[in-house]
């Protein structure tokens, strides 16, 4: 059921990537995993997606580079962007929102269920979108 949408997940940790794929595919999304930042950049240039979820720390390019590439690409310029990170207070959600219009900056560890809710709200006209964002950003 790929009518739900096509997602690009950028995550270098094998286990986390596997779980995100499992969870989101169960919800009916088509999931592509990029294991390195460099792979992510290639995929963004080559294919259209409906939403990109990216980790911050990755080999090759990092999450910020991915955001930049998305906003600069022909195919994926306007899609929702979600970033998550294990870093502490070094990343500023406000700065990233201002620069790349990311929808949410999430801290690890996070709940996969809440992530699904967020993705769903971003891809549909969901009045609970703000709550979904807040649930993950506050975590």
């Amino acid at each position, binding site marked *: 059921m790929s009518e739900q949408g096509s997602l690009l997940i950028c995550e270098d940790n094998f286990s986390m990537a596997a779980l995100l794929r499992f969870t989101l595919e169960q919800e009916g999304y088509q999931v592509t995993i990029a294991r390195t930042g460099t792979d992510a950049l290639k995929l963004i240039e080559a294919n259209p997606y409906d939403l990109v979820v990216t980790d911050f720390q990755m080999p090759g390019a990092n999450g910020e580079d991915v955001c930049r590439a998305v906003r600069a690409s022909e195919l994926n310029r306007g899609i929702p962007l979600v970033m998550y990170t*294990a870093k502490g207070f070094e990343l500023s959600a406000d700065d990233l929102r201002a620069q790349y219009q990311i929808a949410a900056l999430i801290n690890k560890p996070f709940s996969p269920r809440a992530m699904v809710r967020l993705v769903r709200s971003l891809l549909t006209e969901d009045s609970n979108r703000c709550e979904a964002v807040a649930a993950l950003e506050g975590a």
Partner: protein
Amino acid sequence: MPPITQPDSLLRRLVDQHLMFGLGCVFLCVTFSLGLAWHGTFTEHVAAAVLAPFLLLLVGAFFLRQSVSVHADIEDQLREVASFDAAPDSVLKPIHAPDAAAAGWNWLVETVRERRVLAALEQRLSEALGKADHGELALVLGALTDGVAVTNSEGEMTLANGALASLLNAGSADELLGRPIADCLAEHLAAQPQLFREQLLAHTGPGTWETRAGSGDQLGVYRIQRTVLSTDPGSADATLWTIRDITQQKLAEEARDQFLVTATHELRTPLANLKAYAETLALHEGIDVEQQKVFCNVINSEATRLARFVDDLLDVSQMEAGAVRLARHEVDLARLMEETISHVRPQADQKPLTFETRLPPKLPAMFVDKDKLSAALVNLIGNGIKYTPKGGSVFFRVEADEKNVYFHVEDTGIGISAEDLPNMFQKFYRSSDVRVQEITGSGLGLAFTHEVARLHGGSLTVESVLNRGSHFTLSIPISREVV
């Protein structure tokens, strides 16, 4: 002292007494003689009439002389003093006479002499103290490890110490005097001299700057502080500069920051997996049994990974506190080697590389801390595996002579640059090489292994060629007596 008599004052004696007496006598004699002459008698004694007062005057003069000799002496000495420009020490002499004036004079001479002695003493003392002050101050400045300088209103150095001379590559502190400090500091301590010089000269008030020059072995980070010294009215503003080499401090700070970044990541990544998998298992319907098993295994291995990192952290905090203790026992080395190798095999099997081991047929028993030694070796071999790309090889070999047992770990991995080599055993140190940064590591393993070697009385050494491979040797003495 001869008995002091209290005669009448000089004026009374000279004028009133002697002069009057003399004149009186003269008058009497002349009158008597004239009287006699008038009477016509004793005319042959006219000569006597003239002689008598004359003799009287002579006698009087003699006594007068005696009477004023002290005063004459004083007057002479005073005249001499007036004619000398310099100190009258040798000129003033005491007068030995039973006279109050003499006594007074002597007291005066004595006092003058004492005063002069005291003055001379005072001067010698202050000179000596002055020298002592300067001497001590110079020693203190010379002993300081921070560079110190004082500059005048032109920015030229009027005072500098040895430490500053070394920092600025001058032969001695004296060479720096008169030179403009901003130029010197910018030239020797800044990566961009022009820019830094401008920063220093932007204003004349107090300030603090940090500069960085060189890199790797040649890295120097300096803190420069400028204060305006409070001035006496009348003398120009003086500025005090202190320059401190904070390279080690900076490196330590940066290594620790690097560690915190790594630590946060290393803790949160397994935690994220644990939470995600556990939540999915608990809440998700429609996961088949096989899938559930897979998920549980992931939880298990992530927990192990987390536990290992927490152990690393504890080791580090022990090392920081200097509290690593060895629990030494007689250990069968062959058994220990087996356990160690079985620890690392899974890690080696995960990667397509060759892992070979060679142990001698007989290994001595050793008096060591089994767990720490095993951990140290696991760390070395694990590093070999981590930092060797696919298709490479890691070689673990043990040798022994009468004194020591040598554990060799050789690999054909990415190697260590000459720049990084001296820092390899520092806590938190990780090479800035991209290939190293991409591999997760805390920067603690080698520090720990090195500490274990040291505590056993042994050593850890490394040889390496960048891009060719590395060779670590851990040597532990066999004898119980060492350490």
